[in-house]
């Protein structure tokens, strides 16, 4: 947030990264009556890391976050902050901060009052508390609104106050539960990069919950993809995108999602299917951006992109629909029993809706799954 313009001074009370801040979750289970919200979940967050819990609604990501923050009693498992077991500790004693989806600002307090509130429970003296509040307000560009009440602020400003209230105490752990989902699209994109800069600069370990994969990809050090109360994969955004652990991750991450095909259809189309020691795959996946139209010489027309390493033989497919989506084009293709979506950065010249055209696949980018949906 305004990082280039306002480096914190040497005497800044908002200190930069600290060595501690690790979070270890082992075997976490949370059950409500008959419903298992989180099941035997292991998660390790490094100090200073921003880890995103990504998954569809109802997958248990918010429950996991709330358990770590202490707002839910866990049914089983342990939670450690560094070496300290906090599993049975009240949220008041855990030294966590939280940004709620609804911001949860104190409506009867001014911005200043909201920012000061967490500091009253620390041993920070009055003058230092005032300094910190002013510093965090400046950092969030809210210094002119210190005496305003939340009801008079815009959504974006409220969100900033919520972030400020969480950061002012410099907690061991910062929890964010869909903090941007109430902002409009443009503000959401701006704010997420600001949040990322701020988090990196202060070095506070952060767990961030979202269902928005684009947000997750852009902000995370690592992403934990969750489904049905379990973690499907933990990895860097690149890992999760390029090397998904299973069909769920492959289908959840990426927009449009990965194409899944029957290996027999792929073979029938004349594309070499990868074989492995484990036998023939059950499903073959390819991301939409690794399907290219061919130019007049039969070469892949990859536009201004990287070279295609290992192109397949050209396959004739029918173009059902060419759909412009912002900066790219999505092309629906059928043929040989396949039903595919290709994503191109530029509109191909000689491809028209309703006609057949030749396409090639990048064979190095094929992902194969076994019958359990795991990557082979």
């Amino acid at each position, binding site marked *: 947030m305004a990082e280039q313009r306002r480096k914190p001074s040497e005497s800044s009370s908002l200190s930069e990264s600290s060595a501690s801040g690790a979070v270890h979750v082992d075997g976490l289970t949370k059950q409500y009556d008959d419903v298992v919200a989180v099941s035997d979940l292991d998660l390790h967050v490094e100090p200073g890391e921003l880890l995103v819990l990504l998954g569809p609604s109802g997958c248990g990501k918010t429950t996991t976050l709330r358990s770590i923050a*202490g707002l839910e009693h866990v049914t089983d498992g342990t939670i450690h902050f560094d070496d300290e077991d906090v599993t049975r500790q009240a949220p008041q004693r855990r030294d966590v901060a939280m940004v709620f989806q609804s911001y*949860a600002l*104190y409506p009867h307090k001014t911005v200043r009052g909201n920012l000061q509130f967490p500091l009253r429970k620390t041993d920070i003296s009055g003058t230092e508390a005032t300094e910190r509040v002013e510093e965090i307000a400046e950092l969030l560009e809210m210094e002119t609104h210190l005496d305003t009440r939340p*009801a008079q602020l815009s959504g974006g400003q409220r969100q900033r106050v919520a972030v400020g209230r969480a950061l002012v105490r410099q907690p061991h752990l910062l929890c964010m539960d869909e903090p941007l989902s109430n902002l409009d699209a443009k503000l959401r994109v701006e704010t997420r990069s600001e949040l990322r800069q701020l988090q990196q600069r202060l070095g506070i370990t952060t767990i961030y919950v979202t269902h928005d994969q684009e947000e997750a990809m852009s902000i995370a050090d690592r992403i934990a993809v969750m489904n049905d109360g379990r973690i499907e994969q933990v990895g860097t955004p690149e890992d999760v995108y390029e090397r998904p652990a299973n069909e769920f991750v492959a289908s959840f991450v990426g927009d449009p999602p990965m194409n899944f095909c029957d290996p027999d259809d792929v073979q029938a189309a004349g594309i070499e299917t990868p074989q492995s020691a484990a036998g023939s795959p059950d499903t073959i996946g390819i991301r939409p951006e690794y399907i290219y139209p061919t130019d007049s010489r039969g070469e892949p027309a990859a536009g201004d992109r990287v070279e295609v390493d290992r192109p397949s033989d050209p396959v004739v497919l029918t173009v059902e629909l060419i759909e412009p989506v912002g900066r790219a084009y999505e092309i629906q293709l059928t043929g040989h029993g396949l039903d595919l979506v290709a994503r191109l950065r530029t509109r191909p010249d000689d491809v028209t809706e309703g006609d057949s055209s030749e396409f090639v696949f990048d064979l190095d980018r094929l992902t194969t799954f076994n019958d359990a949906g795991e990557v082979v």
Partner: protein
Amino acid sequence: MTVRENVANGFRIVLDGHRRSSLLSRIGFYVATALTLLFSLYPFYVMFITSISTNESLYSRDRGVIPKSFTLEHYEVIFGSGSFPVQTYFWNSLSVALVTSVIALVVSILGAYSFTRLDYPGGTLIRRGIIVVYMLAAITLVIPLFQLLVRFDLVDTKTSLYITYTVKTLPLTLYILWNYFRSIPVEIEEAAFIDGYSRLETIARVIVPVSLPVLVAAFLFSFKIAWNEYLFASVFLQSEALYTLPIGIETLDSAFQNVWGEIMAASIITTLPIIVMFLYLEKYMVEGLTAGAVEG
């Protein structure tokens, strides 16, 4: 928006036909309004006029709706003569109403909070029980309460009123606050927990300030009930020094004959504080009714 503005708006809608009301429905509105006003305000009018009419005009056959002569002699009797200790009654009423309202408010803040946020065995039973108790007529409670007061040797003490009035007002204040607390987003409390505040501290520093308008309303209702209470006071009190205003007015009626001027003057004195209090606190109350719109 105050009650006054709300009423004014209602009239404007009807008069300007903003909501495209038919002639028939407008006539219906006027008739209903006129009848309501007649039945609710006319007794006050009679009370006021009687209190300032001379005795001759009060007992003359052809007294009109508007009296021909005015006098303050009834008020002089009330305040001046030793026969009616209005100040003692007033302070008794005030202390009973204040103590009752404060106890009811404190207890119902904690009680309503527990209804809203805490799960405990029998919680549902207690919640329903509160409503049932509120539905009971006061007269059905008089004898059991009297027996209890005898047992605890509290008959003819102000404490008997503090206790029984609290019992009487608590269901209402609990219900008002419970309804409001349910509209407070739980995240605000969770934010306070995470910021390091215990549950009691959170109630004191977050729930109470956020609910202030509704607390004012609950206080006012509770004060009104205690201030106007007649039945319990008439049964549980015996010494005149402990009488509250409603009982005092009754003694005026039974001790003297044909003192309607004095009775009505005393009634005006009894009614005024409630009206003044309502007008003063009204703006907080209406705010309270719309305060659910507060952003989480």
